């Protein structure tokens, strides 16, 4: 019990630290020295240390063959919907008292904190990246007009992201989800004087909101069936066969569970920028570069992946297939667009979308029935490693942009490796990690795992073989466009002499985060020989277990185990029952082999291709563009996705608005104008009467009032004593009048 309290209290502290910083800085940043950035940074540093303590505790538990799983919840609301009551009784033991919490009446909405391996990892990821980005921002945005507001927003963002990963239920998750989106809106529009930034902020907000509507529908579907927002209640309900009623939407037949899962995934699509809702993320690059690193690469966009990972047991196989295809399409589509982008941040933005697609693909093929368990694991693992190196890439690009006086086009760079040695070295490590340089980088292990899982999925289900090949192809494209970026930026002759001469290495506050992130992008993070765990599993797979519904025995609350749960630990065996061996997290050898060979091959192919075109320039880029002109234009216009939205969504909306305007002009205005005319005519008549008759009376009244006023003015002496005397006299008079003595 003491152990459990300890970690839960740390979680609460982690959540409250940035919240406090936000409140203080938001209210008082004008009065604080340096606008209070040191408060935000130091509080986040403390949160980082606490997160590391929790992480170490989780690893320690894993070393003793136990899974960290602590849970604390509080009653928040009491909803007495009849439906909720009946559903609550329908789920046997959904509200049963456990060792850690009291009895809750039916219909009560409980919210709380769930701490397990996944949460521990996410806490570390969020706090590490946040802390480094906060530190970096202090140099990057030095002297900005809204420096204090910026830090307040950053802190609020960290608060909501931490709240999101700490939630034990969909309700608070949704609340923090929206808060995260709101912070993103504020930060993208940080320089809202620029119209493009303001537009991008609105676009990001609305696009993610569209996804969130689906998510809200999904959550409400779940609540109306289950009567609870909590993950465990939902899983238990589904495990007992709930939500299997068949529902037909748009001619598609699916279980209620399927539709709810798709609804949730819509939210994830919006937040994690999955096709077709990915359009906001490239535009979001209008925000300050550290924001891009923090929100649009490392943490916020990870929320969608986290949601799918957290709710993974809830997703039926059909929904997971949908997830996998969306992920694959996203990965491939955005990788192709990244090939032709000139803006350094846009390239990184599209690579982010692509990598998020990978994660979704991994989660999608990691289904419980007929899926590849490793896919789930590597999907989330990739989320972790990607957070570090993508944050590093963005911060590195920020360093370049900072050095280049906010010039973002890669064609203006060139040869910057000599001017920015540290930035270049770290950037190279991040790039290698993103492209999957074999064995030395963390990205290699996780991406390789996802590709392997997708390939194995294709072996088990031959009709879906394309998923694996798409992933491999996109990996090759990744390698190509990233080295294109490297060659254009850091190698070759300077294409803009002026810019080159003024370039200089960034201050330490910007370089230090790069170095830390570079270390975190090295191979030991992804390998299975880290932290003294010299066995088959990587540290990640010992921490994060996929909660299993099939193998989970229905009567899980055995006395022996609940005693263990009371100590905040559960034996690993409890989560992985009889089905554990069939549900191995290890890939089949042939899939692993294929993925290894394939990914190394495409990595080299991409590298060599980029080198030929952009370093040695044996092949001229514009020649290729001329030959494949239609393709080039298609890519340059981002597959016409924005145009599609313009034609299909915005244009009809504008037409509708125009139509409404016509109605307004010719119908409503006519009516209004008629009444206006009638009113004027009437008013003229009344006006005549007014002048002759009413005014006479009014003037008379006014005169008599003025006369009375002149008289009464004599009593208003402005002296308190007269008022008191009058008061006493009045009281006496009243007493004499009404008192029957």
């Amino acid at each position, binding site marked *: 019990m003491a152990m459990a309290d300890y970690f839960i209290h740390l979680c609460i502290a982690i959540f409250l630290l940035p919240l406090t910083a936000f409140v203080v800085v938001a209210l008082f940043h004008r009065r604080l020295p340096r606008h209070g950035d040191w408060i935000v940074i130091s509080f986040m540093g403390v949160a980082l240390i606490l997160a590391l303590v929790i992480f170490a505790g989780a690893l320690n538990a894993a070393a003793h063959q136990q899974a960290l799983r602590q849970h604390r919840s509080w009653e928040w609301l009491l909803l007495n919907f009849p439906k909720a009551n009946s559903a609550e009784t329908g789920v046997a033991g959904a509200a049963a008292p456990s060792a850690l919490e009291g009895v809750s009446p039916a219909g009560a909405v409980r919210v709380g904190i769930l701490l397990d391996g996944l949460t521990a990892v996410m806490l570390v990821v969020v706090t590490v990246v946040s802390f480094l980005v906060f530190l970096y921002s202090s140099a990057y945005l030095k002297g900005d007009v809204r420096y204090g507001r910026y830090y307040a927003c950053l802190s609020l963002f960290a608060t909501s992201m931490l709240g999101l990963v700490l939630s034990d239920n969909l309700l608070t998750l949704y609340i923090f989800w929206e808060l995260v989106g709101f912070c993103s809106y504020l930060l993208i529009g940080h320089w809202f004087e620029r119209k493009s930034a303001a537009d991008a902020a609105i676009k990001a907000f609305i696009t993610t909101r569209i996804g969130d509507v689906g998510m809200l529908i999904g959550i409400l579907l779940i609540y109306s069936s289950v009567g609870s927002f909590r993950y465990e209640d939902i899983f238990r309900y589904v495990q007992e066969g709930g939500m299997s009623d068949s529902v037909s939407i748009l001619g598609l037949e699916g279980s209620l569970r399927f539709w709810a899962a798709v609804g949730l995934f819509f939210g994830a699509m919006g937040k994690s920028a999955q096709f077709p809702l990915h359009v906001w993320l490239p535009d979001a690059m209008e925000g300050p570069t550290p924001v891009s690193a923090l929100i649009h690469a490392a943490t916020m966009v990870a929320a969608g992946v986290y949601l799918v990972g957290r709710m993974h047991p809830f997703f039926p196989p059909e929904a997971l297939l949908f997830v996998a295809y969306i992920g694959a399409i996203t990965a491939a589509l955005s990788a192709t667009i990244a090939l032709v982008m000139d803006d350094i941040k846009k390239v990184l933005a599209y690579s982010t979308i692509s990598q998020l697609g990978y994660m979704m693909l991994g989660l999608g093929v990691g289904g419980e029935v007929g899926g590849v368990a490793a896919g789930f694991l590597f999907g989330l693992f990739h989320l972790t490693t990607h957070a570090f190196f993508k944050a590093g890439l963005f911060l590195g690009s920020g360093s370049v942009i900072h050095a280049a006086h906010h010039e973002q086009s890669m064609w203006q760079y060139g040869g910057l490796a000599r001017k920015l040695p540290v930035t270049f070295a770290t950037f190279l490590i991040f790039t290698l990690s993103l492209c999957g340089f074999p064995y030395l980088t963390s990205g290699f292990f996780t991406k390789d795992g996802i590709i392997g899982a997708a390939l194995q999925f294709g072996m088990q289900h031959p009709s879906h073989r394309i998923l694996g090949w798409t992933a491999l192809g996109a990996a090759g494209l990744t390698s190509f466009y990233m080295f294109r970026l490297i060659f254009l930026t850091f190698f070759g002759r300077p294409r803009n002499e002026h810019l080159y001469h003024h370039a200089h290495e960034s201050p330490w506050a910007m370089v230090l985060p790069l170095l830390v992130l570079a270390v975190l992008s090295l191979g030991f993070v992804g390998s299975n020989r880290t932290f003294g765990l010299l066995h088959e599993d990587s540290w990640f797979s010992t921490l994060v277990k996929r909660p299993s519904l099939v193998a989970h025995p229905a009567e899980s609350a055995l006395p022996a185990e609940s005693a263990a749960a009371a100590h905040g630990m559960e034996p690993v065996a409890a989560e992985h029952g009889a089905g554990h061996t069939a549900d191995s997290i290890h890939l089949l050898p042939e899939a692993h082999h294929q993925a290894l060979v394939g990914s190394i091959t495409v990595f080299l192919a991409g590298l060599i291709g980029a080198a030929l075109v952009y370093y040695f320039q044996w092949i001229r880029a514009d020649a290729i563009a001329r030959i494949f002109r239609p393709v080039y234009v298609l890519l340059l216009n981002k597959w016409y996705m924005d145009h599609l939205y313009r034609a299909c969504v915005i244009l009809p909306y504008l037409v509708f608005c125009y139509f409404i305007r016509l109605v307004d002009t010719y119908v409503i205005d006519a009516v209004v104008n008629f009444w206006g005319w009638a009113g004027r005519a009437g008013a003229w008549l009344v006006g005549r009467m007014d002048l002759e008759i009413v005014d006479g009376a009014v003037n008379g009244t006014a005169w008599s009032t003025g006369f009375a006023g002149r008289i009464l003015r004599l009593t*208003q*002496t*402005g*002296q*308190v*004593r007269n008022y*008191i*005397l009058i008061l*006493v006299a009045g009281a006496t008079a009243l007493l004499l009048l009404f008192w029957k003595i």
Partner: protein
Amino acid sequence: MYPITLTHYLAAGAFLFAMGVVACIARRNAVGILIGIELILNAANVNLVAFARYWNNLDGEVFAIIVIILAACEAAVALAIIINLFRGFGTVEVDYASKLKE
């Protein structure tokens, strides 16, 4: 004349109140008026406490405490106003400070 009953206390309260009213009227000094107001508040408090005892209910005493708090507030603010008055008019005689009338 004894035992002492509620009426006695009420009479004392009434006397205090009346004296407060007299002070408010007769005094020209703003501080004097303030003293009168304090007397009136004390009269109210005596009544509150007496009734609280009479009904054997402590609510009256709670209100008396709150009245004391408010009296303190009032005294502080009133003295601030008086000092401002002194700065503005060079006197604290309220008869001269009737500028708002004009």
